[in-house]
């Protein structure tokens, strides 16, 4: 049996998406800028996909700028706003953002920008008042993510948007983990990043929503595609794949029930902590810490039995650092290292007991190997 519980890292492409993308590869393979019929065909697919996506988002199709995914969208939002507002040299973001926001902000720091990082509470939630306090006259932008990739916490982005609107600063949200999963009113959001491969579309495609009237400059210059905001031949198969993925219905209620069943099961294991918020949590995230063992070991033991989870965030695990997100929520040291993340898809439904049973078995095995035991008795 294979149970894939790493949908926040990436998803399997939906079969209907794969079929459609393949069709485009083979039939509508033209360059959307070419004037002949093959190009026109690709162009019409692109126009259609843009309209479908705009409809789903609830915006104007002119407000969608296709990119290569979440990382590029975050870069375009932050780095694209800067040159249009040269006298604004201050950025507010949060300590739990994805590296594609944190590192971009750090990069801006090298160019004379001052960055303020708003902290989070023990559930990983940003305090809106704290954000408001950090906003200054020279604040260019506030960037706070919609849903956290590690612990699944849903941020109060609509309220943050309201504050930004009131203060007259731009607001960007990295919605890579929230888009299509958690409803979001774009009323007070100027920029929103989305990535296809987190929602059943191929890797290497995504978009930045840019509210009409928000002036940004491109970070990729060239042929002037995407209204001059993102040069490069359009990834028509990927874009059509993204539009198609939005048509696929996901049984969120069922997955949420599975999530709750798994969490309830895990809570029965000794020395366990569920990280994040139970109330403001995306429906498919489980982030759990076990006392006295190390996450990578647990992940690899589960791997042997066909259960695929991740430790902390996929990219941080290779850098051998403990999770900055778990640190930010104040998790204890011996718990920080023993965390795994499960981001569920439909294949988990019906297998919850199996998953919990395997985790318990592996945790016990690793605890036998670990020198940290005694403290457990006092739990």
């Amino acid at each position: 049996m294979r149970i894939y519980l790493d949908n926040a890292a990436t998803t399997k492409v939906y079969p209907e998406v794969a079929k459609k993308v393949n069709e485009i590869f083979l039939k509508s393979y033209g360059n959307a800028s070419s004037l002949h019929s093959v190009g026109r065909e690709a162009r019409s697919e692109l126009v259609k996909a843009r309209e479908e996506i705009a409809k789903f988002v609830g915006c104007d199709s002119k407000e969608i700028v296709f990119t290569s995914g979440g990382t590029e969208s975050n870069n375009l939002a932050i780095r694209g706003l800067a040159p249009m507002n040269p006298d604004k040299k201050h950025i507010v973001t949060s300590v739990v953002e994805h590296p594609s926001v944190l590192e971009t902000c750090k990069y801006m720091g090298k160019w004379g920008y001052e960055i303020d990082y708003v902290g989070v509470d023990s559930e990983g939630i940003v305090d809106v008042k704290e954000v408001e306090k950090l906003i200054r006259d020279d604040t260019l932008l506030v960037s706070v993510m919609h849903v956290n990739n590690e612990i699944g916490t849903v941020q109060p982005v609509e309220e943050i948007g309201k504050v930004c609107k009131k203060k007259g600063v731009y607001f960007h949200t990295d919605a890579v983990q929230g888009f299509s999963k958690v409803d979001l009113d774009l009323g007070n959001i100027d920029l929103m990043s989305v990535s296809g491969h987190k929602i059943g579309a191929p890797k290497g495609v995504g978009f930045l929503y840019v509210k009409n009237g928000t002036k940004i400059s491109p970070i990729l210059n060239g042929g002037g595609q995407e209204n001059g905001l993102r040069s490069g031949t359009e990834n028509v198969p990927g874009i059509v794949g993204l539009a198609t993925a939005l048509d696929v219905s996901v049984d969120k209620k069922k997955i949420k029930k599975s999530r709750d069943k798994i969490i309830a099961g895990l809570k029965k294991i000794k020395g366990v902590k569920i990280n994040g918020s139970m109330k403001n949590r995306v429906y498919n995230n489980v982030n759990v810490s076990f006392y006295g063992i190390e996450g990578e070991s647990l992940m690899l033991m589960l791997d042997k039995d066909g259960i695929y989870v991740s430790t902390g965030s996929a990219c941080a695990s290779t850098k051998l650092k403990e999770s900055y997100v778990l640190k930010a929520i104040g998790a204890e040291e011996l718990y920080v290292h023993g965390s795994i993340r499960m981001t569920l898809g439909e294949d988990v439904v019906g297998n919850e007991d199996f998953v919990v049973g395997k985790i318990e078995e592996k945790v016990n095995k690793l605890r036998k190997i670990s020198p940290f035991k005694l403290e457990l008795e006092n739990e």
Partner: protein
Amino acid sequence: MGSNCDYTKAVFDHFQNPRNMGEIEDADGVGTVGNPSCGDVLKVMLKVDGDKISDVKFQTFGCAAAIASSSMMTTLVKGKKISEAKKITNKDVAAALGQLPPIKVHCSNLAADALQKAIGDLK
């Protein structure tokens, strides 16, 4: 790419089926290295008989490479003369495991360090 894709068969074997795992109640020498905040702690316990290491056990809190290195290290020292065990370095442990991904080399250092500390602790 995750670093763990580079683990050898020997690493997986020693990780899944660790040898000499556990405690020696009346150990003659104990060595503990690492730090819980770094995510790794290794404890090595030795029992000696004359000039020989008659038994060795380990407990490890750490990644797969740390557990595999600990296990492999114990197989390298069990039954050896103390003077021979003193010469065992992290290179020997890593070599016995085939190879470790570069960022995982420090895990094998810990195993050798804990061993040497335990030898130093012998009366």
